[in-house]
């Protein structure tokens, strides 16, 4: 009696609360194809499907669907089922680690899932790699470029083994890592006679990585790196910051980052401050969104972008099968994102078809062994770390409101320069 003098509320609502939780549990257990089906194979992709990255991830998904479409949803004796998972949340329009981890666990626990295509952001990959690795599930990334994910001794201490708790490898990426793009961009700038560079990045994994690699290569080349600054990707505009850039008076301004992290805004402010310096951006900015935000007209002929592999515009749109199909399906040329998605999906489908049994380990191995000859990006394979053997970087310039292919750089150059020092 006395006990409830102190608190005049009564417990029943508790049962209500718990029962709500339970109802959710029961109501939602139906999702995810749980029963093992002998001739069906699930293929999941985990990309940010809402918010700022929507455009890019849409293109990746188009590529994947195209690849599946090509083989009429058949991989060997299996029928393919593709599930396009979202790893972003409503509140913040960007990828969330919760979403990524949940997707990875879903894939791991579903016996039909044989491959996991993702992720778009290297940060997200850091979340799902250990989970998938424990379960030996093949993970193919169409967009991760952070060096540490695969290459031993290049990233943070302990990378990449911290992502491989089981000791085996299961992660493949079809896009070259930053340690290709950054240095090659520097070489390109050097050959153009640039001597004073101002390096800017978006404080992200990708941007920071590629920018510092670019800066280091510049120093090796003997160019003067005036400053290396990180911008705040949340800021609305960079007027005052651009002022300090101008006062340094560089020949070339390098931006490591993407259109999602205010690359366009930065370019716009730089131009409106009437800087004569040429602008060189990494492949994250090689998108329509970037041009829209920056105002393509103002960048005409003075903004260059590097991108891994051969650039799509180089091969004109009717040459390759992919371009044909993509054209007739979506009316535009596929962007790099779409192409990488397509390649990733093709790699996976082949691996599954070759193995022919639902054995995750075997599929991983055959994927590692695979060798692509008729790739859209040229000929390439997978090396021991799970990296693509692709070694070209193509530089393109803004002309007529879009990126036009300029030239191809290749690591042969790096080898030569190293020899000379």
């Amino acid at each position, binding site marked *: 009696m006395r006990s409830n003098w102190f608190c005049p509320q009564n417990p029943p609502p508790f049962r209500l*609360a718990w029962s709500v939780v*339970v109802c959710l549990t029961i109501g*939602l257990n139906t999702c*995810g194809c749980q029963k093992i089906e002998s001739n069906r194979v699930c293929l999941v992709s985990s990309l940010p499907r809402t918010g700022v990255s929507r455009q890019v991830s*849409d293109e990746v998904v188009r590529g994947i669907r195209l690849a599946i479409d090509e083989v009429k949803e058949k991989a060997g004796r299996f029928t393919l089922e593709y599930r396009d998972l*979202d790893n972003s949340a409503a509140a913040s329009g960007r990828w969330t680690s919760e979403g990524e*981890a949940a997707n990875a666990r879903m894939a791991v626990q579903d016996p039909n899932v044989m491959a996991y295509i993702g992720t778009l952001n290297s940060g997200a990959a850091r979340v799902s790699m250990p*989970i998938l690795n424990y379960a030996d599930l093949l993970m193919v990334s169409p967009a991760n470029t952070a060096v540490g994910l695969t290459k031993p001794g290049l990233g943070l201490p302990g990378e990449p083994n911290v992502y491989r708790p089981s000791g085996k490898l299961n992660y493949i990426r079809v896009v070259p890592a930053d340690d290709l793009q950054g240095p090659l961009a520097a070489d390109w700038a050097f050959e153009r006679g640039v001597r004073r560079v101002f390096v800017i990045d978006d404080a992200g994994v990708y941007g920071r990585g590629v920018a510092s690699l670019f800066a280091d290569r510049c120093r090796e080349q003997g160019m003067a790196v005036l400053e290396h600054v990180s911008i705040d990707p949340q800021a609305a505009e960079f007027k005052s910051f651009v002022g300090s850039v101008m006062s340094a008076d560089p020949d070339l301004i390098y931006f490591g980052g993407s259109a999602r992290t205010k690359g366009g805004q930065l370019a716009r402010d730089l131009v409106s401050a009437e800087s004569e310096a040429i602008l060189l951006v990494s492949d994250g900015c090689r998108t329509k969104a970037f041009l829209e935000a920056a105002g393509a007209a103002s960048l005409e002929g003075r903004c260059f972008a590097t991108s891994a592999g051969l650039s799509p515009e180089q091969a004109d749109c009717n040459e390759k099968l992919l371009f044909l199909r993509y054209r007739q399906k979506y009316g535009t040329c596929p962007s790099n994102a779409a192409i990488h998605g397509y390649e990733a999906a093709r790699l996976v489908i082949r691996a599954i078809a070759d193995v022919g049994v639902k054995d995750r380990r075997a599929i991983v191995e055959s994927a590692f062994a695979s060798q692509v000859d008729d790739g859209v990006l040229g000929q390439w394979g997978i090396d021991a770390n799970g990296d693509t053997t692709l070694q070209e970087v193509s530089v393109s310039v803004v002309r007529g409101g879009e990126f036009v292919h300029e030239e191809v750089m290749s690591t042969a150059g790096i080898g030569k320069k190293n020899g000379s020092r």
Partner: protein
Amino acid sequence: MLALAPWFYPALAGGLGGQMTSVLIICIAALGLNVMVGFTGFLHLGIASFFGLGGLFLAILTVPMNPLEIGFLPAVFVSVGLTAAIGTLLGSPTLRLRGEYLAIVTLGFGEVVRVLFLNLENVTGGTQGLGPIPPPGSGIFVTGIDLGREFVVDSRWFYYLSLIALFVVVLLVRVLEKSALGRAWIAVREEPLAAATIGISATKVRLSAFTIAAAIAGLAGCLSVASIGTTGDPNAFGFNRSVAILCAVIIGGLGSIPGTLVGVTILFGFDIVVIPSVDSWMQRIQGQVFDVSLFTLGSWRLALVGIALIVVMRFRPIGLIPSRRFAAEFQESKQ
């Protein structure tokens, strides 16, 4: 019954379990916020920053990138303690402020913490976050199976862990509410003047609530970070998260524990669990259609959540399961 549910539904072992886990974890954080907003009646817009701080400390203490790799449990205790300490330090100068001003200060603190997360890259890992965090059971082998592997691969383990933590926190909060301290909180909320004239120092009382809220949120942060395996993108600890948790608490019913649980379950269950599963379901029925730009709930998430908030507040302004105290107070204020 709830505890047994996962065994019956193997789907919980997969993504769904992970999503449910994060809902439970947010329930914990929301209970912490409820101590501040519900009991002492002060608007607190920065709870997510404490959530993040707890997780960050855990990560710093455990990840293999850092030299000091102490075990999971001690790390949890240390980081909860640190979070509480930071809460006290922030609270002591600011808690004399009036309602709106305090709200803005907490908001500002949240933003400052987020910016620190983003900018102190060497400490926090910047946007990429710190990780992977070794799971609780790593290295412990029970009958040949590595517990760590189980924790990582099968989300049911963390589901249980957070369920237990939730029960503990619920009990703690109930005990506090019935204690002398709890009565002091409610006195300050209901009649600040009278509370002051009977010698309750509003600042001290609020400070205690603030600290406890910080500690609980820190615990939630630890669990979330551990279950995800990395601290992830610091922007997840920003204003949006704080506000979402606050909304959950308010639509649940201020000052009532079951209300908070229901609020979080509805709001975050909707956002984290329902929408993704509905989307994947819609994809499966539209599997043949190859056009990617088909209608997904995902692109309308924000609007749906917003409308849900508006509607609930329109028809249940005092929340879904208000505490009897709060209802009575509302009656009082009406006449």
